[in-house]
Every structure is written in structure tokens, then in C-alpha cells.
């Protein structure tokens, strides 16, 4: 969705409507307020000095007999424009200051950053008051003072946001091309940090309004004969017991205007994607749609399930709701069994649905995606919807019977905790072990995955482990129980090839020693073929091939995609000096397979596939949401 579309969408929410309305009202007051009520607000009524509410003056009059309400309405222009001017100046200077260190670099840059840090240490209002005193008592001086007080925090914000962009490759590419640094900053850094700054500036305008009122209240801001809300507040305060409205009405105006800016910030934040995206209501609607879709399906079909399967699913679908609410399937009905003691590889390119399939096996798919299947069984237990209508939870299988290994071991280990404690945690949470028992078993498991000097390593932090060792520790954590299945999502992709070989050996050994089944997802068909006993090939959400690794190696792949994929893997016997084989853009293997052999995509059993059902595209039948995300 484009930004303008998102802006319209967020303006159409109740919050957006309110913000729009409030902004329109404020704008009206600022532009037309003094024009319409200017003269009548200035009219003094000497017969009614400092009176309370009356039909003529609904909120009474001030010390010169002028109408409080009209004066409040007229004061909007000065209050709001001063606040906006201060914000504009403060934010602009802050952005320049925050970007300068990138342009100057070196020592000058460091000095500026240090200056910003010192500035941030002082409270903003304190800075505003001090500068206001120094600059003198006038509206302009107060505007400048408030702007100056904003500079450090905006400098810091801009610099922090910029620093995260500065490390990216497109900045390096600009350097290498010789683009001048100031151009790089204006062209590549500023647009990429713009959104959070805009949202913050909207909220800051509200703060500036309040600060301004504060300064005027102290007598530092606007001076007579001009008046703003703060000035009126200060005048009204002295008579608060005589006519409370004299102080309360401008006070309420300040609050309402401040709220308007905060609301505007919220709406902009939603539109620019800096806040939380997707309202709770939208999520609820999507879920409801998913349930309705399930209920509309015909009655459930019975499919024979093989006895010795650890995991079996029929017609597994992972869907996202599309633009207009209709489900958009990302995994389009796959069915397979994972036999006991098998190592099954799921291979496919990015976007083929292989990781989604694995994540749905683990019950880790979260909204806005949802999972459905005709049936799903893990270790003999039905995982589909229970009799009471609630989806069965898979959580309790974790740690005990099901282990998961992720791609990035640095992300799956908490950097602030000892590795050993994180391995032992499974024992404490799921197996009911005591702390000492869990520790002993964790050390044992770390030794099992061949981490040298496991007792000492137990107390180390993740950053003290190498990538390969971290992945071993994750596997050790999975082995704390006696899992019947390990789900591994690209566990070696982030590792060096030599380390990858070690992890593969370890997985093979666990499989041989304990008989644990493994599902291994990878984009690398060569790795999968060397490790696994059976290979599932996924292509655009379909399971196109289900073949034993042996048959695959022997060249018995049936689907044209599998054959093409195999052909693209470079090996030590790939001919040199000729173009490498590749799959050109826009090749549609599903259409190709249909043309070649109509039954190809329907059923592609490997010649020697054992004990497993090979129905590739499941029979169209009822889908029950399985282990759909519950509110966690």
C-alpha cells in the first residue's frame, strides 16, 4: 500500500476522523478567529469588569471587562502559530545538527555528537526558560527559546536514525561511486529517516504549545497588549476564586489544542508505518473470516494415516487475507507424512512456502496468517480443532517431544543470559527437573553436541560462542527432552561451509543414535540431498515432488522443476568456461508440468518411497484451523 493510500485509510478510522475534525476546527480558529471576533473581543465593557457568567458573557469577563470566551477563540491564532513556528525552527535546526556529523565526519563530527549529548542532558523546559530570560521578554524571544530547547533532542533523534541508515550498503555504494557526502546525506539518509521525524514533530507541536503557555504564564512570553492562552491563564489565575472560568477556559483550550497535535501524530504514525500497524478490529475481522471459510467447507474426509508417522498432515494451507479480504493461499494444500527415524528435507526457493510449512508444523504461524488442514497428527495425537471448538495447542509438545532449530542462532539465544541457562530452561519448564538436575543434564547435552569443555562453556554468553557452537547449543536445548521430531529451519545457512558440514554430521548422528526424526528446511538442494533420506520439493506453494534422496541422486526426479533445480547446482565437475545453468525469469514449471504429463503435478511418488502417503495435492475437503495462533 502506498503512503497516500495508508493515510486515507488511517483518516477513515474513528481516531482519524476525530483528528481531522479537530485540526479543521483549529485551522478555522487560527485563520478566521481574529477576523470574526477580533473587534468584539477587544471591546471593553467598563460596566462589567471581572464578572462571572452571564447571558451576555457565557464565561464572564476579565479585568478590563472583555469577554473570556471570545478572547480565548481569538488567542488561538497567536498560541498555535507561535507553537508551530517554534517547532518548525527547532526541528529543522535539530535535523541539520543531527546530520552534520555524517557530513563532517572525523573529529568535528564527534564534537557535534558530544555537544548534542550534553544538550540532551538538560530538561527541555529548563532550557526554554533560561534562554527566554536571556533573550528577553517578547513573543519572538519565547519562540526562539522553545526552538533552541528542542534542538538537542531532535539532533539526537536524527543522528540515531541516520546512524542506522548510514551502515547500509547503499550508502557504501554511494561512497564507492564518489557521490559527494552532503549529497549522500540529503539524498539517501534524510528521506529514510523522514517518517519518524514527522510523527515526532506533530507530537512536539503539542508540547511546544504547552511550553509556550508556560512561558507566557510566567510573564516571559507574549506581552500586553497581545495575548495568548498562557497570558490569559496567568491573568485568570489571580481571580480563580472569583471567576474560575477566566483561568479554566484558556486552560481547556491549551489541552484541546495539545491533544489535537498528539492525535495528528498518532494518525500520521499509522499512515507512515512508524506506529503499530493494523488495528485490533481488522485482526478480529480477518480471524472471523478465516473461521467462516472453514465452516463453509463440506464435511471432513477420512484419509488413512500411516501408523508409524511422527507427523502427518493432509491438505495443509497457510493463508493471508488479501486486499479485499479473500484468503490468499501461500501454502496451497500440501499433504505428507514424516516417518519415525526419517530425515526429511523440504527444499525450494525463497517464497516457495517451505518455511511457512515448517512453521505451521511447529504451530508458530501468527496473525495475519492462518493455518488450516483437513487433518494433522503429531505422535498419534490429533492436532486439529477440539470438541469444545478451541484449537488444540502445540506448545506443550515443545521441549518434550518437539524441538526447533532456527536459522540465526544469535537471534534465537538471548544475548544477556548465559548459554547454559537457556539450554537448561527447557528442563525446568517442560520436564519438571530441579535446577541442579537441569544443569547437569544441560551440561551432558552440551557434551553430546560436542561442545568442548562444556562445564565452563555453560556459564558463557552467546557472544563468546562461535556461530557453529551457538547452533550446537540450540540443538542441545532441543535434546533436553527426548524429542521425537526436530524441526530445523535453514539451520546452516548462516554458517561457513566447513562449519555447516559439522552441523550436518551432528544431525545425522543424533538421528542414528536416538532415532529422532528431523525435518530440515533449506534452499540448498545439495545440502538436503546429502543429509536427508527423503526430499520434499516445494514450488510456489505447491508440493511438487516427494522423493527418496536415493532416487533423487540417481536422477529419478519427475517434476521438471526438481530437475531444473538440480541442474543449477554448481559442483566440482561443473564445466568451466561455459555459461552456468540457471532458471530464467518467468519460467512457470507448474504449467510446464501440466503440459508434459497431466498427472505429474497431481501425484509424484518416488520409486522407492517407503511407508508414506504421497498424495501431493490433497483432496478438496474440509479444513479445520489447526493450532491457529492464540493470544499469547
Amino acid at each position, binding site marked *: 500500500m502506498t503512503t497516500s493510500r495508508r493515510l486515507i485509510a488511517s483518516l477513515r478510522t474513528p481516531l482519524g476522523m476525530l483528528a481531522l475534525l479537530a485540526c479543521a476546527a483549529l485551522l478555522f480558529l487560527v485563520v478566521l478567529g481574529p477576523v470574526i471576533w477580533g473587534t468584539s473581543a477587544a471591546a471593553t465593557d467598563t460596566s462589567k469588569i471581572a464578572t462571572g457568567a452571564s447571558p451576555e458573557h457565557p464565561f464572564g469577563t476579565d479585568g478590563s471587562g472583555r469577554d473570556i470566551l471570545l478572547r480565548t477563540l481569538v488567542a488561538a491564532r497567536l498560541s498555535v502559530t507561535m507553537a508551530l513556528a517554534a517547532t518548525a525552527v527547532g526541528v529543522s535546526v535539530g535535523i541539520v545538527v543531527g546530520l552534520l556529523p555524517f557530513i563532517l565526519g572525523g573529529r568535528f563530527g564527534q564534537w557535534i555528537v558530544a555537544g548534542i549529548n550534553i544538550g540532551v542532558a538538560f530538561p527541555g523546559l529548563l532550557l526554554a526558560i533560561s534562554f527566554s530570560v536571556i533573550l528577553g521578554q517578547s513573543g519572538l524571544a519565547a519562540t526562539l527559546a522553545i526552538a533552541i530547547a528542542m534542538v538537542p533532542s531532535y539532533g539526537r533523534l536524527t543522528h540515531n536514525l541516520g546512524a542506522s541508515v548510514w551502515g*547500509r*550498503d*547503499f550508502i*557504501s*555504494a*554511494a*561512497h*564507492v*561511486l*564518489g*557521490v559527494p557526502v552532503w549529497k549522500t546525506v540529503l*539524498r*539517501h539518509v534524510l*528521506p*529514510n529517516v523522514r517518517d519518524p521525524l514527522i510523527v515526532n514533530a506533530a507530537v512536539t507541536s503539542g508540547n511546544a504549545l504547552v511550553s509556550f503557555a508556560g512561558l507566557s504564564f510566567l510573564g516571559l512570553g507574549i506581552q500586553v497588549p497581545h495575548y495568548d492562552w498562557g497570558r490569559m491563564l496567568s491573568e485568570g489565575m489571580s481571580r480563580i476564586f472569583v471567576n474560575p472560568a477566566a483561568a479554566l477556559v484558556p486552560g481547556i483550550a491549551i489541552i484541546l489544542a495539545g491533544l489535537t497535535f498528539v492525535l495528528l501524530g498518532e494518525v500520521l504514525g499509522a499512515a507512515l508505518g512508524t506506529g503499530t500497524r493494523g488495528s485490533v478490529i481488522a485482526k478480529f475481522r480477518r480471524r472471523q473470516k478465516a473461521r467462516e471459510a472453514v465452516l463453509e467447507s463440506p464435511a471432513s474426509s477420512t484419509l488413512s494415516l500411516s501408523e508409524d508417522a511422527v507427523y502427518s498432515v493432509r491438505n495443509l494451507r497457510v493463508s493471508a487475507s488479501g486486499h479485499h479480504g479473500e484468503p490468499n493461499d501461500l501454502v496451497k494444500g500440501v499433504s505428507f507424512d514424516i516417518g519415525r527415524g526419517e530425515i526429511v528435507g523440504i527444499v525450494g*526457493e*525463497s517464497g516457495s512456502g517451505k518455511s511457512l510449512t515448517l512453521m505451521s508444523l511447529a504451530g508458530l504461524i501468527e496473525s495475519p496468517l492462518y493455518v488450516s488442514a483437513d487433518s494433522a497428527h503429531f505422535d498419534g495425537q490429533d492436532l486439529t480443532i477440539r470438541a469444545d471448538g478451541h484449537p488444540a495447542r502445540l506448545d506443550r509438545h515443545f521441549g518434550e517431544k518437539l524441538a526447533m532449530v532456527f536459522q540465526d542462532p544469535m537471534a534465537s539465544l538471548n544475548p544477556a543470559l548465559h548459554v547454559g541457562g537457556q539450554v537448561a530452561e527447557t528442563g525446568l519448564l517442560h520436564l519438571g527437573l530441579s535446577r541442579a538436575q537441569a544443569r547437569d543434564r544441560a551440561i551432558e547435552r552440551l557434551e553430546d553436541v560436542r561442545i568442548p569443555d562444556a562445564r565452563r562453556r555453560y556459564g558463557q554468553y552467546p557472544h563468546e560462542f562461535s*556461530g557453529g557452537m551457538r547452533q550446537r547449543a540450540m540443538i542441545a536445548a532441543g535434546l533436553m527432552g527426548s524429542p521425537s521430531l526436530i524441526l530445523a529451519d535453514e539451520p546452516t545457512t548462516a554458517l*561457513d*561451509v*566447513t*562449519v*555447516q*558440514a559439522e552441523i550436518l554430521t551432528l544431525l545425522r548422528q543424533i538421528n542414528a543414535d536416538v532415532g529422532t526424526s528431523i525435518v530440515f528446511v533449506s*534452499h*540448498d*538442494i*545439495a*545440502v538436503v*540431498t*546429502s543429509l536427508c533420506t527423503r526430499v520434499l520439493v516445494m514450488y510456489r506453494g505447491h508440493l511438487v515432488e516427494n522423493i527418496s534422496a536415493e532416487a533423487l*541422486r540417481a536422477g529419478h526426479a519427475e517434476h521438471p522443476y526438481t530437475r*531444473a*533445480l*538440480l541442474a*543449477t*547446482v*554448481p*559442483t*566440482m565437475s*561443473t*564445466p*568451466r568456461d561455459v*555459461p*552456468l*545453468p*540457471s*532458471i*530464467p*525469469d518467468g519460467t512457470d514449471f507448474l504449467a510446464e508440468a501440466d503440459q508434459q504429463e497431466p498427472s505429474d503435478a497431481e501425484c509424484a511418488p518416488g520409486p522407492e518411497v517407503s511407508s508414506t502417503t504421497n498424495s501431493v495435492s490433497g483432496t478438496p475437503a474440509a479444513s479445520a484451523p489447526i493450532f491457529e495462533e492464540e493470544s499469547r
Partner: protein
Amino acid sequence: MTRALSFDSVSISYGRGVNTFTAVDSVSLRLVPGEILGLVGESGSGKSTLARAAVGLTEPAAGHIRLGDTVISNATGTAVKERRRIQMVFQDPQSCFDPRRTIGESLDEAIVAAHRRENEPRPSTRSRAARVSELLDSVSLPADRAASMPAELSGGQRQRVAVARSIAAKPEVILADEITSALDVSVQGTVLNLLRELQQELGFSLLFISHNLAVVRAICERVAVMRGGRLVEVGETLDIMESPKQEYTRELIAAVPSL
């Protein structure tokens, strides 16, 4: 005219005092004009750091980097311009384009930068647009892709545009840093074939950094092996693959999967 890129006992370190970490330890390596040299090694072996030093993204603590006879390390003045004759293609196709600028704008920036380097007048908008189409065509992408945002392109297509961007700078040397490791194997061939074709056509030399020995073997004439910041082996690709002298090289070769 292509000149040789040479590293003379280059050392690069990070940090100060006790925390000094030497990423590259007196490496001497020469990239012969017009050749494809493979640079292999595990992560942390210093191969990317060496390449980043050649384009000025980091500077060596000791030693010199030369393009022909010009010293381009710790460069000032005209040497900085010379250094732009070396271009780099990065690993991550997600991060190598500004997400807020179209593909055409990114290529245009490279074209303008190349003209500025030569002190030539800035070409007209029309001729720059024509050059953008030409560059896209050279990497087998339709000209209308110029209006696309990076997010609308696949990883393989983005990597091809990254190659086009480096070509726009009329380079003598291109450093390709693991350019296919984030891509699917099915599109890896497309990107590499293209790079090789362009190399033959335009005659730049290519430093091909990779950890995939099978790919290196397929496209490189010579191979250099780095480990722990040191250069452990350099030689003809087939010699090294058939009779590696270093244990580490042997491990790398053994790690190549066979089907």
C-alpha cells in the same frame, strides 16, 4: 585500458590499544588486468575487509594499495578519483539500494558520479535516461524497470541492477563480495553468467569473493585463499582444486556438496 590492482603487505586493524583486532595481516596480492581472481575463506578471514579497503570504505594501517602505479590507499586529491575506477557489488540485495528511490534514480546517480569524476559536463536528462535503459539492457532487464522501486524486484534482479550500477562507473576493477550467497541457486547462474559476459566484453578485472568453491572453480582463472587475515594460498584454480597445499583449502573443497 585496465590497470592492475595490487595490495602490498596490506594490514588492516580495528580498535585501539589492547582491543586492536587485526582483520588483515600483511597481505600481498595482485589482480592481473582482465582476469577473474577468486578470493575464498571463512567468515572473519578478512576477505571482505581487504575488498573494502580497495574502494576506500576502510583504510589500511600499513602497506599500500595501488591501481597501476597510483597509490590509492589513504588517498587524497586525484588518487581519490582514481579509486572510483574500482567498484564493488555487495552481498545483500536487500540493502544495496535506497528503498525510497527508483532503480532508474539509483543508476542515474552512478552515471552522474562517473561524469563528475571525469570533470565532464553533466549530461542532459535525456541522454542519462538513454544510458539507464542501456545499462538495464546490458543486464537483460527491460527498460521500463527504471521506474520500479527496489522492493518490486526479486533478489536476483536487484543483484543484476547492482552489477549495472557498478558498470555505470566505467570501472577497471569490480570487486564482487559474495554477490550470490543471498540468492537462490536457480538465479545464481543468471547473475554470474551476466557478470562474466560483461567482464569479457568490457575487459575489467574481477575479484570474486565467495565461500562456494564450486562456483569459484567454475568462473575463476586463479584463486587466493585467506584464513585468519592471512593469505595462505594463491594459484591457478585447477592446480589448487586438484592439489591444495593447505589443510584449510582441503577442508573447503571437502565441504562442497556433491549430488
